[in-house]
C-alpha cells in the first residue's frame, strides 16, 4: 500500500513537473496541490467514469459552491471554456490550465476567456441574440411593463452602442477587447464568469495549504 502511494506520489510529481512547465501562473508545488485536489474531486466521483476527469455536474458544483456562481447558462459556458477538447470532461491538464486564467489570469487572458464564454455558439462573434439570451434574466420584470423584454432589448442596444466599434451589430473579439481595455468593468459584461477576489483567496488558501499538514 505504501508502495502504491509512493508510486502515486512519484507520478503526481512528474505530472506536476510537466504541467507546470506548460502552464503560466502556477509553480510546481501549486500545480501538485491542484493535481491532488483534482484527484480528490474525481475520486469522489463514481468509479466507473473515473479516468476521464470531472464531468459537467461535478464541475458545476464546484463553480457553485466554491466560487458562488449561480447562472446555469454561464456555468455551462465556463465548463465549455475549461473543457478545451470538448469531450465533456475536464481533464487534469484542462483543470490546471483553466484555473490559471480563472484565478490568476492577466487581463489579456481574461478577455479571451470571457469572450469565449459569451460566444455561445462559438462562431467568433457575440450576436444580438446571444446577448439577449445572456441578459434576459438581468432585469426584474415589472408587471406593469408593456413588453417585459423591452428593457432587455434596450440593454442589448446599449451594450452594442458601447462595444460594437465596427457597427456590424455583433461583437467581434476585437470589439470586445477594445471595449474592455477602455473600461475594465465591461470584462464580465454579460454575466459573472470569473470568481471575485474573496473566493479566489479562499480557494487558494484552501488548495495550496501544505499537503503534509494533515
Amino acid at each position, binding site marked *: 500500500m505504501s508502495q502504491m502511494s509512493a508510486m502515486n506520489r512519484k507520478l503526481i510529481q512528474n505530472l506536476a513537473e510537466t504541467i507546470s512547465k506548460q502552464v503560466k501562473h502556477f509553480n510546481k508545488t501549486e500545480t501538485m496541490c491542484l493535481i491532488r485536489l483534482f484527484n480528490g474531486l474525481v475520486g469522489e466521483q463514481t468509479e466507473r467514469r473515473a479516468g476521464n476527469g470531472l464531468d459537467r455536474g461535478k464541475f458545476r458544483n464546484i463553480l457553485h459552491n466554491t466560487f458562488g456562481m449561480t447562472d446555469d447558462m454561464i456555468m455551462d459556458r465556463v465548463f465549455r471554456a475549461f473543457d478545451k477538447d470538448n469531450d465533456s470532461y475536464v481533464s487534469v491538464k484542462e483543470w490546471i490550465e483553466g484555473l490559471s486564467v480563472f484565478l490568476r489570469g492577466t487581463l489579456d487572458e481574461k478577455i479571451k476567456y470571457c469572450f469565449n464564454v459569451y460566444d455561445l455558439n462559438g462562431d467568433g462573434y457575440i450576436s444580438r441574440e446571444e446577448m439577449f439570451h*445572456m*441578459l434576459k*434574466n*438581468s*432585469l*426584474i420584470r*415589472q408587471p*406593469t*411593463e*408593456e413588453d417585459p423584454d423591452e*428593457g432587455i432589448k*434596450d*440593454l442589448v442596444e*446599449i*451594450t452594442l*452602442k*458601447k462595444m460594437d466599434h465596427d457597427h456590424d451589430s455583433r461583437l467581434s473579439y476585437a470589439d470586445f477587447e477594445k471595449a474592455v481595455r477602455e*473600461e475594465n*468593468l*465591461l470584462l*464580465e*459584461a*454579460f*454575466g*459573472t464568469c470569473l470568481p*471575485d*477576489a474573496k473566493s479566489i483567496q479562499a480557494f487558494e488558501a484552501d488548495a495550496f495549504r501544505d499537503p503534509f499538514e494533515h
Partner: protein
Amino acid sequence: MGLALVRAAQWTTASSGTGKLEITPMNESLLREILCFVEQFSARHPQEARHVFKEPLQWKTSLEASDFKTEYDISGDTVQSQEKDKDGHPLLHLSPPDISVSSFSQLSKLLQLARGRKLKELRACLEENRDPVVKILGPSFATVEGQDSSVLRLLEKVKEDDQGRETEVKVKLLILLQQLDTQLLSSSLKQLSQEVRLSPAAVKSDVELLRSFCGTGEKRILKSIQYTSDYEFNNGCRSPPWRQVHGEICYLIVETWDTEPLFITCSTAGVFLNGGIKQEGEENAYERKSDIYKDLVTLLRSHSPHFAENINKQDFAVQEEPLSMLKIPHVEAVDVEETGQTQRSYEQQRKNVHEKARQQHVPNKLGGKKKLEPSPKWKNLGLASPPDEADEKKARKSGTSEKAGESLLKTQRPESKKRVDVSGSSLPGRQSSHKTKTSGGVVGADDFSESSSESEEDEEQPDRRAESSTDLPSEYWQIQKLVKYLKGGNQTATVIALCSMRDFNLAQETCHLAIRDVGGLEVLINLLDTDEIKCKIGSLKILKEISHNSQIRKAIADLGGLQTMVRILDSSDKELKCLAAETIANVAKFRRARRTVRQHGGIKRLVELLDCVPDSASLTEEQQKDVEVARCGALALWSCSKSTRNKEAVRRAGGIPLLARLLKSPQKNMLIPVVGTLQECASERSYRIAIQTEGMIEDLVKNLSCNNQELQMHCASAIFKCAEDKCTRDLVRQYEGLQPLVALLSQSDNKQLLAATTGAIWKCSLSMENVAKFQEYKALETLVGLLTDQPEEVLVNVVGALGECAQRPENRATIRKCGGIQPLVNLLTGTNQALLVNVTRAVGACATEPENMAIIDRLDGVRLLWSLLKNPSPDVQASAAWAICPCIENAKDAGEMVRSFVGGLELIVNLLKSPNKEVLASVCAAIAKIAKDEENLAVITDHGVVPMMANLTNTTDDKLRQCLAEAIARCCMWGSNRVAFGEAGAVAPLVRYLRSKEPSVHQATAQALFQLSKDPNNCITMHESGVVKLLLGMMGSTDEALQEAAAGCVANIRRLALANEKARYG
C-alpha cells in the same frame, strides 16, 4: 365574445362563478360594444337572429311586465313572447325577476324596451352567463383559452349533419360572434395598453366620472373630489414639472362620507395616498403613504367602505348621456385620419385652456404665491411626461398623419438649442466660484491665525432646482431609463447601465440634475453599500465626476454618501479606495461635508492611505497602485484640510511625517495634493514648526524649480505661510530658494502663482540677509514693475516686499531709480486695507530718504497719507501715522506743509482717543514730529493734546511709552504745557517708565522728565516718586543722550533744592 369577456373584462372576483362586472371605463366600453352588436343584430342579420339558442340566456331582470308591449302575451306578472320555437316554447319568458331569452331577435327587442336600463340589463345578463356562446350554440363551443377549434368542429358537423340549413345559420352566427369577439379584444387591447400606465387622460376621465357621483344626496358615494391645482399643463398633467419627472400626473383631495379627507397622488405607476398635498410646494408631502392602486376607484374602494358599498350599486345609467352619443356602429373602425385630426384639435383645445389658465394665474402671481406659479417658460418646454410620449408613439404607430410626426420633430429641435444655452450659461457661475476660491485663499493667507480658506468657496448654495429643471433635454429621459435599469437590474445589468451612464457628458450640469432628479443619486449611493465591487467602482466613477457640481455634493452628503465612502476606504481593493478618496476629495468642498468625514473617522483612514513607499524610482505594478492610493488620499486630505479641526485631526493621525515622506516623491501629480495639503495646513502653527523641523522646506524649495505651475504655486504658498518664522526664512535662503522665487516673478500671466510667489518673497524679505540676496538677484527692479496692472492679492505682497526691502537705504534709492515711488503713492488712493497697510509702510520707508521725499511731496503723498488717518481700519490708521513721521522729518517746510492740511492737526490729535495701542503709539510719534514746529505745537495744544496725552501715561506698553514720552518731551516746549502736564498727573507715571526694561523707553522718558523738571512743582512730584535714584543709575548709561537728559533732570531737581535751601536759610 367569450374570449373577450374572459380576458378583457374586469370581474370583481377573479374566479368564475357569479362575479360582478366592475364599473371601469374598460368594462363600460366593452358593454357598449356588445350592446351595439346586439341591438343591430336583428336588423342586420334577420335570419341568424331568429336562430334559437341551444339554451336560453337567463338572468334576473329589473324589467317588469308593464315594460312590455305588443308581440308579448302578458298575464299578471309574467310575460311570454308570441314568437315561439319549433317546440312551442316562447322565445322570451319573464316571471319577475327571472327572465329567459332564446334568440337574438328577442334579445335586441328586449334591449330596445329596456331603454335607459339597457346597459344594466346587458350587464346582468353577462354576469349570469359568463360564457354566452355556450348557451347560444351549445357546450362544444365553450371558450377554451388558447385553442379555438370550434369552427373546425362545426365544419365537421356540417359534413355529418344533413340539416344543412340550420347548421349554416349556426356557422354564420358563430362567425359573427367571433368577429365581435376579435373586435372587442382588439379594442380592449387598445384600452389595456393605455391603462397599464395611467395617463393624464385616464385620470381625468376617472375624476370626471367620480365627480358625477359627488354631492350631498343620500345615495351619493362621495362628498367631493377636487384637484389641488387648476392649472393644467399641455401634456394634461397638473403636477409641477419637477414632479412630473417622477411620473406624477396630479394631486386630488377627496372627501368621502366615512373617512378623513384623502390626499391622493395620481402617477403613471398608479394611484396612492400622499402626505397631504393641499397645494403644491410642500416638498415632504409628496411622499407615498399607501400602497399603489391601479386606479382611483380601487383606491377609494379600499379606503372608504361607504364608497365600496355604494359604487357597485351605481348604475351605468349615470353615464347614459355620453353613451347615446356613441350609437354609431363600429366605433373603432373610424378611419385613422380622423383620429389624428381629433387629436390635433384636442391639442389645440388644450392650448386654449392653457392660455386661459395663464391669464388666470397672473393675478395669482401678484398674490405672492410665487412657488406655486408655473412660469410661462414651462409652456414651451414640451414637458412630455412618459404617458404623453406613449400617446404620441401610438399615434405614429397607428399610421396617423405625418404631420403629427413633423410637429414632434419641431418641438424637439428648439429644445436642443436651449440646452446648449443652458450649459453655456452655467459656465460663468462655475468660473466665478473658482475665482472666489483663489481670492479666498490669498486674502486669508494674510491672516494666519485663521484657517486660510475656511472662507468657503461653496458654502451651501441655495438650491436652483426650479430654475434649472425647466429644461428637460433628451438626456433626461435616457438617464431616467438607465436609472430604472440600475434599480431593477442584477449585477450584470447594473454594470452595463453604469458604463452607459458614463458615456454621457458628466461634466454637464443638465446631466447632474437629471441624475439627481430621477433619483439616480440614491441608487448610486445605495450601490456603494452592496458587496459587488464592480457596481461600487462603476458607481464611484460616476459620483466622482458629478460631484464637481456643488448641488450634487450637497445631495451626496445629505444622502449619507460620505459615511459609506469613508467605510469603503477600508476596502482591500485599491481601485475602489482610490475612487472613494477622490470622490471624498470632491464632495468635501463644504464645511458640513468635511465635518462629516472627520466625525466618521475619515481623516484617520485617509491618512492611512498615505502610507506607501514612493521614493524608489522604478515601481512594480502593485507599488504604482499604492502610490495612486496615496495620491488620492492626499487629494481628499487636501479638501478636508480646509477646516481647522481637520488639520488638527490630520496631525493627530500622524499625517505630517507621511506627508513629509510623500513630499520626496518624484511624481508631480502626487506632489500637488501633498503640497496643497501642507500649504493649507501651514496656517496652523504646529504645522509651520513641523514643516521646518521635518526638513520639508528643502523639498518645497526644490519643487519651486519644477515645471508645473500649480505645484510651484503651492510650494510658494507654503513658504509664504511658513516664512513668518525666522528659522524658516533662513532655511529658504540656505537651500537657495530665493533665486527660484525671483525667477518665478517672470510668470506674470499666472496670477495665482504670482500672488503666492510675491507673498513668499515678502515674508522672506523680513530677514535682512534675504533682502541682500534679493538685491543680488535684482528682485526689486522686477517687483517695482509689478506695481501696476496687477490684482490686489499680488499688489499686497509686492508692496509688502518693497516695504521690507526699503528698510535698507540702497534699496530706497533703487526703488526711486526704477520709478517705483509714483506707483506706490498712487496706490495710497486704494481701498483694500491689507494693501493700504503695506503701501503706507512702503511709502514711509521710502520717505526716510530726502530725495524720495521730494518726489512724494510733489505727488502730494503726505496729504494722501494724512487722509488715510480717517480710514476706519486701525491698522491703516497706525500704518499711515507711522509713515507720516519720516515725511515730516524729511520734507522741506514740513511745518508749512502740515498746516496746509485743513483740519489735519485736529484729526491727528483726536486719534489719541483710539483704543488701539498701535494707533496711539504711531500718533504720538507723529505728534512728536509735528511739535517740532512751534506754530503747529501751539495749534495742537489748543486742540487739547496735553490732557489727552496725560491720560495715556498709565500705559504699560513700552512702544507706546516711548512714543508718548517723546511726544511729551516735545510738547513741553510750548507755553505752560509743562505745568499743564504736571497738573494733569502725567509726571508720576512717567517716572515709573524708568523702571521699564526697555532702554529706548529710558532715553525718551529721561528727556521728557528733563523737560518737565523745568517746572518746580513737577520736580517735587518727581522727587516724591523717587526719580533721583533711578536717574542716577541712568547717568551711568553708555547712551549719551540718556546720560545728558538724566543729568539735566537731576540738575534741575538739585537746583530747585538749592534754591529752596537758599530761600529758607538765605
